[in-house]
């Protein structure tokens, strides 16, 4: 995967995580991280698309949002199609 494509994927994941966070009623990434026992700085980096997250980390977040990996990645694709 080329560097630029990889970077775009991380950004798209981050944007989707922000959407999911807001859908849960959180305006602040800090409050979200604190309430769900996540390292705040690491979570911030995920939302900013700056972190090469592990599958374990992603699964923990998807578990919080009660969304499967399939649904999550399909939603990225759908968003990409719309744009």
């Amino acid at each position, binding site marked *: 995967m080329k560097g630029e494509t990889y970077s775009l994927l991380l950004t798209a994941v981050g944007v989707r995580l922000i959407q999911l966070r807001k859908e849960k009623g959180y305006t602040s990434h800090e409050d979200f991280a604190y309430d769900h026992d996540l390292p705040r700085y*690491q979570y911030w980096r995920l939302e900013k698309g700056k972190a090469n997250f592990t599958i*374990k980390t992603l699964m923990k977040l998807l578990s919080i949002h009660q969304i499967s990996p399939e649904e999550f990645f399909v939603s990225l694709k759908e968003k990409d199609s719309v744009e």
Partner: protein
Amino acid sequence: MTVKTCLLVTDDPDDHHAFSEAFSEISDDAVVLIVLDSQKALTLMKGRRHTPNYVFLDLSMHGIRVNTFLSAIRGSAELREMPTVVYGNEGDLEKIDQRDGLMFFSKQYEYSELREFLKKLFQYQSE
């Protein structure tokens, strides 16, 4: 300000992030050194270039020779007094021949549990 150095021996990137962040939250003067395998960690410590204040060893690392590592630490006058924390899954403890003097922490930690454990460790060592 006396810098406290914590040597984190693990190849797990989630632990790298969690430990680094937890240490920085509980102590302004803690530095985390990350080494990806136990052999390199031993080389670092035995070279006497640096003796850390604490060592954290991930028992679930691929290819880890935990008994070799612990024997080397115990065999060194400089290193044997260093607080050593092993962490992993419950069954990983079975790998260790001699567990005396070791602290154990579960790898299935929540972030707040890690932070609390490290806070208590620092407080205990400061007393």
